[in-house]
């Protein structure tokens, strides 16, 4: 057992963790932040993507120990005051949500991507999205959604 402190969606948390626990384990099991999804066990689907200190990470292969003193944002932290985040809105508007299981991870990926640089080109968007598997959409609407999100964010 080891005690760590970190912020999740702006709220300070203290938690005891076991060495084998991943960030995904503690988000889901200890804080009930089940919006972050588990799709695999080897970091290859992106469903578990969250933001740690501004970077999109795959929380299933990110040791919980490493978030000590870090700032974590999950899908639950995006909508503010009952308003959807523009990326969330764009994914809906472009029809990019089918089963929705890949959606939180993809939204977090785009959140980090656009936060770092809102002027990324299509190739860079595709590069970021290629870390994510979606079995439903054939990706067309997800790419459209990403571009629409970029537009919404620029208009803001």
């Amino acid at each position, binding site marked *: 057992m080891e005690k760590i402190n970190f912020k999740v969606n702006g709220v300070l948390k203290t938690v005891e963790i*076991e060495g*084998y626990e991943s960030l995904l384990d503690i988000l*889901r099991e200890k804080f*009930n*932040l*089940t*919006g*972050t*999804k*588990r*799709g*695999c*066990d*080897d*970091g*290859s*689907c992106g*469903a578990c993507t969250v933001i740690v200190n501004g970077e999109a990470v795959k929380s299933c292969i990110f040791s919980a120990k490493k978030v000590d003193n870090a700032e974590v944002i*999950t*899908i*639950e932290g*995006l*909508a503010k005051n009952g308003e*959807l985040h523009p990326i*969330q809105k764009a*994914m*809906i*508007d472009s*029809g990019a*949500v*089918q*089963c*929705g*299981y*890949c*959606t*939180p991870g993809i*939204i977090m990926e785009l959140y980090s991507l656009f936060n770092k640089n809102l002027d990324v080109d299509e190739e860079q968007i*595709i590069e970021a*999205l*290629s870390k*994510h*598997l*979606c*079995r*439903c*959409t*054939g*990706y*067309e*609407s*997800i*790419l459209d959604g990403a571009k629409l999100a970029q537009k919404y964010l620029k208009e803001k």
Partner: protein
Amino acid sequence: MSNYSYIGKNIKRPDAVNKVTGKAIFLDDIKIPNMLYAEILTPPYAHAKILSIDTSEAEKMEGVVKVVTGKNCKFTYGDCIKDRYPMAVDKVRYIGEAVAAVIADTPHNAKQAVKKIKVEYEKLPVYTDALDSLKDDAVLIHEKNGEYWHLPSYKPIPNTNIANYYVLKKGNFDEALKEAEVVVEGEFNTKFGSSSAIEPHGTIAWFHEDNTIEIWSSSICPAIIQDDIARTYGVPASNVRVHIPEIGGCFGYKSDVTIEQTVAYIASHMKGYPVKWVASRKEDYTSSLIGHGARIKMKIGAKRDGQLVFIQSKVYHSTGAYADTGVNITMAATHTVGVYEFPYALCEGYTVYTNTPPVGAFRGYGYQYAHLAVERLMDILARKLGMDKFELREKNYLRKDKKFATGEVFNEDYGDIKKCSDAIKNIIFEKEKPKEDENYFYGRGFAAVVKAPKGASNSSKGCYVKFNGDGSVSVNMGGAEVGQGLRTVIQQIAAETLKIDIEKIHCYTEIDTQYSPWEWQTIGSMFTVQGGRALIRACEKAIDKLLENASLALRVDKDMLEYDGEKIFLKHNPNIFVKIVDLVRGYMHEDGVTVGEVIQATSDARLPRYSNPDPETGMGNLGVSYTFGAQGCEIRIDKKTGEVIIDNFASAFDIGKVINPVQLRGQIVGGVMIGIGGTLYEELKFNKDGRLINPHFSSYRFPTIKEMPKKYEVVFIETPESIGPYGARGIGEHPVLGVAPAILNAIYDAIGVDLYEVPISKEKMLELIKDKTKEKAGV
């Protein structure tokens, strides 16, 4: 043009906000007080006798409350053939089968303890391919084959590994052989694949002390689970309550009863406690249902002028260690002969036991294997006859008064294959093909497709429509939303039919057999057609009841009244009316006396005259509602890497009536992508010991955004279907059907090599290209 308010509009999904905010609750998100966790032990051998199981060490581990084995298991289960054991009893038949399980307080403790269970096995020969388990000297995988209960139409062959033999016979086949002037043939193979939803399958089972049983599952078949669990545990079905939360994709393998019986068996040993098991990604591959594994030997005979005469096929389907979930897929692959009329057919299907995980539904349900064979052979036949491939096809397309191989007569409202085919011809084939250059070979391919639901003849979908006091409406149905968007379709159809603002229509969000109307299962691309029809019926009943109430309120005969969504008024004098809100709880007169019914209505709908196959000929009304389509592609093959790049993939479907264009396009391109995966990338690989060597997303690699076609084109044809709501047809599975044959036909067009097997990897492509170049150089 029609003046619909909601049909044909891009209404946004009612569940999207919950999904983008992370609030949608999927199976693994559910926590129940006192919940325990199961971990399942699977064997190291794919076929072996169990000699002994020692659980004593595991029982002593931290957090362990119980260790369960199959030793005392007295039942088998299954919907079609009861050949499945919830946990292995005296032998194991595939790696991935449950041998024992630990129930513990945390998933971690359960995992640690399961490693301590010791099992002794005696190995038996392993077969991973139907052709091997069919050999004369093959050991039996099921000694009891033939003794298990099965649906009356099945024919298991005792003392063999054949779980079912099905034959379709149309016409006197001896005549067929005499009449045909040209014959083409091929042996096709669709290797094992996986639906691979991003959400792994999982179940929670809770046996209560009062003999009620609760199940939560990421399944699309709550009613089947309810019946099956009730039968197994000898309780009334009404004692079994099945909850279905959000489902993170299905594509087939979360249908039928799969892991639910195993988790229930485990939980039955801990009465009073909910027990949860969620597959790891690896277990999702090894221990739920996989797909495909179908070899087809096919011959097509024709006259010299291109008139088709016969089709003959033998389907050898490796359906894995248990055949319950695979048997209907073999049958579908066998009686499917594509979009053409064949005067004669002799098609035989063998459902064969193998030591691989059980095969279950996977988008296309066997139709894709037959389409691969038929559509490749049509191209080959055209070449042999020196005919244009479209001319050959057009000559033989099913149209008015032609007959399907199953004997059903084609009706014009079944759709228009020619229009679909023309659309693809225009998009893909009208322009000049680029010439081979330094880097690439270029090719174009085509395939025509058709599919009907493969269902049960009593399959139906129930609906309950309730008017609320403020005139808003709640719709409750039993259809499982897996991402296909049925909730949006429900809202649109209800709003259109009831003439009510769509904002006031609420669609159910989860299924709970305690409240949900009965639905057989949400499979076979049937929801829009059947569910939509049920919904219209319920809406019409509700309107009729409103009219009854209005007739009491206005003291006038019902037929003098008209409904417009807000009020009911006198046809000849609209100034005399009563508001809907004043009718929904009955009509209250000024003195408080209330008359009339509360406005709620139930209904259901099935496919009219859908039947079982005839025991002799295999024919029957096995389709009823068809969707026709055509698909085509432009590809490039990279000479250096062997990679097949898809520059354009075009699909045209006769959808009857488009209900929601954005959702429909999403279904089609999503299906095409699954088809591309199966054609170029995805294969579950078993070694000769029956071990799956790539049970991870990193090794079972399905397409990412980088493999997306450079362009998707989608065309909708709208020939109204008479039984579908507003003329609509089903579409869920159809987009995968033509992908493999279209790509393989394009590969022939590019390099002149006929391929018969999918997937075709880029390594294999590269070899083919090298051989080709050598051939050209005359080496």
